[in-house]
């Protein structure tokens, strides 16, 4: 039913009017193309392309009509209130208790029993959380069985499900054995049952059983669990824990008398989440609270208002890092822990986004290979330690302090390097024979703390003192200085060379204030060789200082880098702009200029380097052309080509060169050029053999 209008629209009639299917705006919309576009889009569910055709306008105009219509309030997009509120409660629970994740089921949907709904939600969550190769510890209970019955996670490989407690003869449907076995079936996992009773008559019997090889091997499997799934039981009088027969009621009374408020994986906790001691403790066969806390992902599923104190206790005790509950319970937990602002937050109307529509290729987040962004450093180090196990090993189990396998030895000065992460292969790639003895690893772009650095100094020490070499940043200086004081208290003499090779970062009058960047590579190499040759601490320090004084670096960024935790670029750079004088932390450069050719850029850098490096014809240098992360080798070689031309034009000989990723700034697009002005001593040290994950000489 289309009513043709006589009033021609401004847009499109001339172009599209003759075509079949072209519809002028029906009368009831008046002359308003916004309303017409919205009707076709939201009510008739047409695509923007179809609407463009019908209205005889471009797709971009349709897009801007739709965006303007939202901004002008012609269209209101609203979230269903109960779902919005459960999302807000989940976000608040997550924030307040520092959870890894939280899922809250709306409370107003009373068509199904709560346990079923929680089970269904948890089953869906499990499909996202469970991965191939996982070992999942499964506790018992009505909720856990409801999850197992609704779960279906096909396509996983090498998953193991371990029963988290011993079994029971109690007369209920949701026994530990059944919960674990239904879950194993649902996720296609290998099943490990604990073939002992959950509660035995004496502590002696428990200890005997735990020594049985079969049960020992089942506990070994439990100890390998990296994920756990459990309910939380209340100890209120109406709780099923009293009627299940799992625990003896006499003993239960004793735990209650000691202020137990809940049961987590078969263990009693008080209101603050602390373990409550009682007569059953030595007679329970099953996962302990400490074992539970050591598990990476601890998924608790529980709801119902009577469970609020128990869930709150479990959260306070840190037994849970993924919580699945319902909105009423979630709100109750927050209120019980003193969060009152939530209701105000919920009553605020959702903000309407007034920004204009953006083109479809616009990115608000950078794509990265990530799991949990908060774990990026830990996961990287996990990979590093495994990939380079031949070169480095953790000191006292910490991946933040790594020592060379064939580095420290008695009588040798120890070399400790370090700094923030995000610069890989700096700094940990330079640990090994003939180079650094230990590396202290910080967070992204952030210095490691003093304790970590001290551990490195301790591990690197061979009785002849330790040399610290790191870039000149306020944070690094403070933390390394504190570590040096700690080392002095342990009778380890520490000398420090702070690298300052970035000639763009301060004028020559303030040479000591410059920052240390990719030229670190040469300082580390020099220091490592001096140490490996058995020179004294004085001589090692002097050689490194000389290398620092004779190394000149300047960087240029074409695009900013993006932080893993925000997946956003950490500054803006215009489409035609470049940053000259870029450091290695994504901090902005010193001068912004227009994009220019590779040779012009290389010339800008080399001119600056020549202005400071007093090299005479016939002198020798080492050259490093370094990518900031995203610039490919192809472009680095183009830069190197020009660097070589400029040096040979001055009759300066390149003794050695490196082209590639040596000191990066996450995914920054850009490169730096470093030149080390050699003398005989530095040349010898440069050629001294070394063997590390990223640098091998000799």
């Amino acid at each position, binding site marked *: 039913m289309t009513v043709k209008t006589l009033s021609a629209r401004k847009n499109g009639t001339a172009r599209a009017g003759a075509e079949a299917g072209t519809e002028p705006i029906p009368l009831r919309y008046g002359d308003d193309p916004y309303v017409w576009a919205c009707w076709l889009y939201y009510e008739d569910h047409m695509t923007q392309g179809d609407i463009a055709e019908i209205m005889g306008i471009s797709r971009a105009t349709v897009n801007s009509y739709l965006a303007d219509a939202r901004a002008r309030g012609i269209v209101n997009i609203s979230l269903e209130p109960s779902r919005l509120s459960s999302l807000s409660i989940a976000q608040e629970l997550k*924030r307040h208790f*520092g959870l890894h994740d939280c899922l809250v089921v709306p409370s107003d949907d009373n068509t199904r029993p709560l346990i079923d709904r929680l089970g269904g939600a948890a089953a869906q969550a499990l499909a996202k959380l469970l991965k191939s190769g996982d070992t999942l510890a499964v506790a018992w209970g009505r909720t856990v069985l409801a999850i197992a019955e609704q779960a279906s996670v096909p396509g996983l490989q090498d998953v193991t499900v371990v029963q988290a407690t011993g079994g029971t003869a109690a007369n209920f449907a949701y026994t530990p054995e059944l919960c674990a076995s239904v879950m194993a079936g649902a996720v296609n996992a290998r099943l490990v049952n604990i073939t002992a009773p959950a509660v035995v008559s004496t502590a002696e019997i428990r200890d005997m059983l735990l020594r049985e090889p079969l049960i020992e091997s089942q506990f070994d499997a439990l100890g390998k669990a990296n994920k756990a799934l459990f309910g939380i039981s209340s100890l209120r009088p109406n709780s099923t824990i009293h009627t299940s027969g799992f625990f003896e009621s006499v003993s239960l009374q004793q735990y209650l008398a000691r202020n137990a408020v809940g049961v987590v994986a078969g263990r009693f906790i008080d209101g*603050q*989440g602390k373990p409550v001691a009682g007569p059953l403790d030595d007679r329970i066969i099953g996962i302990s609270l400490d074992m539970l806390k050591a598990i990476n992902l601890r998924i608790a599923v529980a709801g119902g208002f009577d469970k609020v104190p128990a869930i709150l206790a479990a959260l*306070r*005790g*840190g037994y849970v890092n993924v919580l699945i509950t319902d909105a009423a319970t979630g709100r109750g937990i927050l209120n019980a822990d003193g969060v009152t602002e939530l209701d105000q937050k919920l009553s605020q109307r959702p903000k309407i986004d007034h920004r204009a529509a953006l083109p479809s290729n616009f990115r608000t987040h950078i794509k990265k290979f990530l799991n949990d962004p908060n774990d990026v450093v830990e996961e990287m180090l996990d990979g590093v330690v495994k990939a380079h196990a031949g070169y480095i090993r953790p000191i006292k189990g910490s991946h933040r302090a790594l020592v060379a396998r064939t580095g420290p030895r008695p009588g040798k000065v120890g070399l400790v390097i370090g700094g*923030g992460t995000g610069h890989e292969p700096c700094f940990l790639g330079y640990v090994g024979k003939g180079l650094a003895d230990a590396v202290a690893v*910080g*967070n*992204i*772009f*952030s*210095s*490691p*703390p*003093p*304790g*970590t650095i001290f551990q490195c100094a301790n591990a690197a020490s061979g009785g002849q003192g330790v040399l610290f070499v790191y870039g000149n*940043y*306020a*944070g690094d200086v*403070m*933390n390394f200085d*504190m570590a040096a004081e700690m080392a002095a208290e342990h009778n380890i003499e520490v000398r420090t060379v702070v690298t300052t090779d970035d000639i763009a*970062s*301060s004028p020559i009058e303030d040479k000591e204030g410059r*920052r240390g960047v990719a030229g670190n590579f040469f300082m580390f190499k020099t220091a490592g060789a001096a140490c490996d040759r058995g020179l004294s601490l004085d001589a090692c320090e002097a050689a490194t200082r000389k290398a620092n004084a004779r190394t000149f670096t300047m960087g240029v960024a074409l695009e900013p880098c993006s*932080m893993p*935790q*925000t997946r*956003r670029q*950490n*500054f803006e750079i215009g489409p035609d702009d470049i940053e000259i*004088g870029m*450091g290695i*932390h*994504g*901090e*902005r450069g*010193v001068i912004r200029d227009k994009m220019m050719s590779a040779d012009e850029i290389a010339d800008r850098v080399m001119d600056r380097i020549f202005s400071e490096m007093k090299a005479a014809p016939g002198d020798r240098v080492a050259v490093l052309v370094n990518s900031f992360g995203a610039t490919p080798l192809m472009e680095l070689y183009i830069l190197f080509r020009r660097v070589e031309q400029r040096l040979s034009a001055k009759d300066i000989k390149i003794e050695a060169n490196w082209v590639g990723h040596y000191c990066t700034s996450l995914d920054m697009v850009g490169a730096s050029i470093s030149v080390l002005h050699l003398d005989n001593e530095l040349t010898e040290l440069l050629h001294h053999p070394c063997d590390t994950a990223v640098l091998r000489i000799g």
Partner: protein
Amino acid sequence: MQQFENASAGDIVLSIADRIIENRAYLSEIDGKIGDGDHGVNMAKGFGMAADRIRGNDMSLATAFDTLGTVLMTEIGGSMGPLYGVMFTQFAETIEKSSSIDAPAFSAMLSNGLDGIQSIGSAKVGDKTLLDTLVPAIAAFDAANADGKPFPEALDALVLAAEKGRDSTRDLVARIGRASRLGERSVGVLDAGATSCALILKALALGAKQKLLISATAGR
């Protein structure tokens, strides 16, 4: 008397941590403009770790400050780890022997925190750092006390001066830290450290005011 109990005031530190964690993205964003964009993330990590250790343990204010200071100092790294670490550790040491905290004790606590920071850092007021917030805030608090203003009013003055100090960093040229490499280009952007310092002082002052109110009501 205008004072509050040290013993039960540890939760003030939890509310400080909450404010930092809430503002994590904001702090990182302003840091990204002239620094390296990690201020919010690292601060939230450190304050969050400390809050986990404080929560549910019914700590005194001194113990909670000590817990926070130790976490920041030993586990966080960066430049803010040691700077705020030493500040909170000094706070803790100043008040650990006091059973209740009055305005002079509060003032001494702040001043010792400032001394701690100045003992390891080299910044001065006007360098576009957290000192631009902290120094005028303490001065305003002390001035209000000298004028005989009640403790809660002095706390209001502290917050006002802290926020004014924070805003003053917008027009300053950074002279220290990574932003200093930018010179004049750092003008026009708030300093992230000055901003987090204002958040911390405000949460501290509000927490203290609340405790004063409770002890006043209880004393009646």
